[in-house]
């Protein structure tokens, strides 16, 4: 970001006049800062500001949702009240008009849109998206649509960051990274959980572990959480009950919860995946009514006695955590929430899947826990423990973010005693979901929109080729740079190889071809040492465990590349040649790329 042409930048430069010009202290400070603030440092500082602005936006977003909810549904929603189905239906119509005419492109959760911005649009997210998401998601969630505020917060943060990056004209490379930095800030602010937000953005938005962006993501997440806590307090989302895990044998009970959660995740994901493209394919005029019909259905569910399915549902989760519902009610709520969230989401209403996923998991966890305790009264885990574990289970199974799911439960509960049940249950849920639903939900949504983006899950499953896979055996003939050229020439006379490795003294490697050696010999340089005829630089060395990709940059420049031992660089493990590398890549089965529906 430094600007050498700007006045006052180089105050130490000699002046043509004999008098030294006086420089104002502020300018001197600025010039010092210019020197210090190279782009990397500036980007880190910018991340803090992104966190602050995202945090402020999320505070306003949460207030807006609360205000709309109170204004439209009142503080004490009662069943059998006409407002329960009238409000979400009318609000659905309003949202549909806004989405179709004023804010196109804000449908859905916002996670895959942010990921698309990172990988396809160079980090570009229109600021209009943030405004539209704020207004439409606020109306939708506040009026009772079964969606959550977290994913929209993520996109609002990403959109703010993207707009800031454009305004400041930072480099394209950095601008591309602004969206995930803002996404982490938005999500952290919405969840009041910075670690989970950072992990989610890495697992789902960025799709790979990248040390280069980690610092910025962490800084923005922390800054936004600080802002949210300073305005809205540091109260956790739930009042965490006493959670216990006493006997290892109880892990079986949590494994059962993981299996049930995995199956529920698949049912949820498949229903979304089946209905979304079909509703999208209906004539455009129907899109005006889809959110309204979804609202009507949810309202009817609430009217008939289950108002808990409306909105994000954090209060109901809190009550489930404290054993307020019998297992039958918990099970019914889980099923109804899957139905309500599916219709809300596939209707194109902007809103998030995080809170509904937690809700379904909480209810399912509570129900499974209570049923298990009916049959095995000796189980010591409270309903609250199963509710908490259930949240993680659906997170792992439906959103397919195993790391985030574990840390989310730990961060929300603040209790490390349940880490083992959480890991066991989440693992079962994740494995079942992965085996029955090959493509994760966010990837499926992206592919339905005609885009194919990288994912950490694909990376995890991909087999990485390493140098050792393409490595050839140690050559029979290795020349020494300290020997005379004629001696070396005689050593290679009967060798079938065209190039030879040369061991340098005291360490290092080089290569020489048979033709070069022959030419030197004919030129009468046989009595010179080989080192005198070789270039001074030694060859780059590779290690057996390096990815094979790292060999690609050298194979065109050198006929042979030594592969040496990490503990002893003089010890040769083998060699890599251009042919061996390409042969290895050629033998690899083609990567299957799914095409959009």
């Amino acid at each position, binding site marked *: 970001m430094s600007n050498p042409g700007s006045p006052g930048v180089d105050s130490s430069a000699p002046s043509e006049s004999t008098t030294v010009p006086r420089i104002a202290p502020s300018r001197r400070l600025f010039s010092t800062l210019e020197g210090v603030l190279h782009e990397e440092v500036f980007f880190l500082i910018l991340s803090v500001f992104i966190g602050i602005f995202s945090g402020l936006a999320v505070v306003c977003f949460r207030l807006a949702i609360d205000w709309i909810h109170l204004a439209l549904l009142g503080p004490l929603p009662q069943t059998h009240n006409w407002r329960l189905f009238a409000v979400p239906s009318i609000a659905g119509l309003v949202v549909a008009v806004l989405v179709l005419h004023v804010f196109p492109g804000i449908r859905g959760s916002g996670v895959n849109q942010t990921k698309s911005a990172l990988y396809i649009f160079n980090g570009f997210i229109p600021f209009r998206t943030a405004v539209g998401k704020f207004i439409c998601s606020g109306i939708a969630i506040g009026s009772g649509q079964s969606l959550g505020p977290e994913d929209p917060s993520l996109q609002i943060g990403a959109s703010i960051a993207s707009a800031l990056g454009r305004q400041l004209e930072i480099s394209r490379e950095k601008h591309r990274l602004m969206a995930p930095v803002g996404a982490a800030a938005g999500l952290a602010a919405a969840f009041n959980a910075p670690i989970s937000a950072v992990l989610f953005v890495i697992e789902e938005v960025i799709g790979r572990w990248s040390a280069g962006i980690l610092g910025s993501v962490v800084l923005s997440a922390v800054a936004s959480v600080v802002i949210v806590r300073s305005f809205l307090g540091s109260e956790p989302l739930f009042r965490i009950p006493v959670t216990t895990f006493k006997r290892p044998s109880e892990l079986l009970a949590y494994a059962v919860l993981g299996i049930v959660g995995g199956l529920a995740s698949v049912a949820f994901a498949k229903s979304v995946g089946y209905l979304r493209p079909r509703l999208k394919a209906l004539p455009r005029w129907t899109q005006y009514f889809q959110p309204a019909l979804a609202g009507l259905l949810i309202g009817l569910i609430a009217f008939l006695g289950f108002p808990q399915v409306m909105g994000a549902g954090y209060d109901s989760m809190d009550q489930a955590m404290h054993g307020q519902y019998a297992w039958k009610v918990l099970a019914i709520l889980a099923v109804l929430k899957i139905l309500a969230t599916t219709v809300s989401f596939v209707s194109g209403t902007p809103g998030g899947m995080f809170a509904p996923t937690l809700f379904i998991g909480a209810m399912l966890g509570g129900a499974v826990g209570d049923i298990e305790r009916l049959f095995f009264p000796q189980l010591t885990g409270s*309903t609250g423990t199963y509710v908490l574990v259930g949240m993680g289970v659906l997170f792992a199974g439906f959103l397919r973010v195993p790391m985030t799911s574990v840390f989310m439960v730990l961060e929300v509960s603040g209790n490390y005693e349940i880490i083992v049940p959480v890991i066991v249950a989440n693992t079962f849920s994740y494995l079942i979901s992965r085996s029955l639903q090959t493509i994760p939900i966010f990837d499926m949504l992206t592919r339905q929109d005609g885009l194919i983006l990288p994912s950490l899950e694909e990376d995890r499953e991909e087999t990485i080729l390493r140098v050792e896979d393409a490595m050839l055996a140690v050559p029979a003939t290795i020349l020494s740079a300290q020997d005379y050229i004629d001696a070396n020439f005689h050593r290679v006379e009967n060798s079938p190889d065209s190039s030879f490795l040369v061991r340098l003294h005291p360490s290092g490697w080089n290569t020489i071809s048979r033709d070069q050696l022959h030419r030197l010999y004919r030129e009468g340089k046989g009595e010179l040492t080989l080192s005198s005829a070789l270039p001074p630089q030694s060859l780059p060395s590779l290690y057996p465990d390096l990815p094979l990709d790292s060999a690609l940059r050298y194979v065109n420049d050198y006929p042979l590349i030594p592969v040496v031992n990490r503990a002893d660089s003089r010890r040769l493990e083998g060699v890599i040649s251009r042919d061996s590398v390409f042969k290895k890549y050629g033998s690899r089965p083609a990567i299957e790329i799914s095409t959009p529906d």
Partner: protein
Amino acid sequence: MLRSFPKLVPRSAPVILVVLTLAAATGFAAVGHLVSRYTANQQARGRKLYELGLADARTTHYDDAIAAFRAALTCDPTNSQYQLSLARALRDSNDPRRLDEAESYLLALWQRAPQDAAVNLALARVAAHRGSIEDATRYYHNAMYGVWSSDADANRNKARLELIQFLLSKNARAQADSELIALSAALPADPAAHLQAAQLFAQAQDYSGALSQYEEVLRVDPSNSAALSGAGETAYQSDDYNAAQRYLRLAVNANPEDAGSRQRLVTTDLVLRANPFHSHISDAERNRRISAAFSQAEQRLTQCAEKLNVDLKVAANPPASALPALQARWLLAKPDLAQLRSPAETDLPDAIMDVVFQIEQQTAATCGPPQGLDLALLLISRKREAASQ
């Protein structure tokens, strides 16, 4: 949208940072203003809902109260008073599933202010609902020694009284008695407080403690019929029939409608008149009382046998199997009555009365509680046993 903005910011990092800082500060102030206004509105709304909840709780409409308190908390989530009231309503709604949630709210409040006596008292009541003596005692003690916002001494005594009542309901008499001793030391000079303490002492079967508390009441209010009646009953229970007679007479005089005391007085008079071991009676009177008791015992035995259709001359099955044996013992002792006047037979009164006591005890166990002179003889036997132990 921002792309259309003119490029106001010079492309110099320090300038950008200054501008961003100013923008952040402005945003902070604006959002702060918005939040404070919104919070004020919400708090006002929360107060209304809270009042609604309190009214519902007062009329024991706990479901409505819980809904109102929950709604109040959505408006003002950190309000300790709302949380405390919700927890109380959850606890008092008599739904065991709600105790967990009540406890969770209270524990959160306790973590913030462990010295708060009201929170500790509420937690103690939750523990009492669960029947946990250990937890309840701990939280009641915390409440007693915690900080009260007003009228600390009275509230502390009330908390201790509540603890004592809880301990008595759980049959933890020793713990209750130690709490009562502590309570009696801190009671104000209020007859009502001493009267309550006396009743609790009596429940804990600490009759001397109870009597001293009743006497405290009578010192201030000598005609307090409840105290007179209680003192009489306490003396009666502790086998001090002279004191019982004195207090019960005063109680009946003070409140002629007190049928319980009147009944107790009749029994007490009988005990005093029928006791052959009384120290200030002549030998003749003693012998007369022994004879009367012996006859009464035979009568009681016969009535009991008739009630159970038992032939006293033939061995019977349990539970009446002891009656023929007692009849045999009575017949065996009958000739001894004539020798009561002999000064050489000093052990005879005890031997005869032993038969009487065995008959009264056995018939009480087999045929139910006795009345009149039989009851008096049973009480005399109990007192005699207690004295010998």
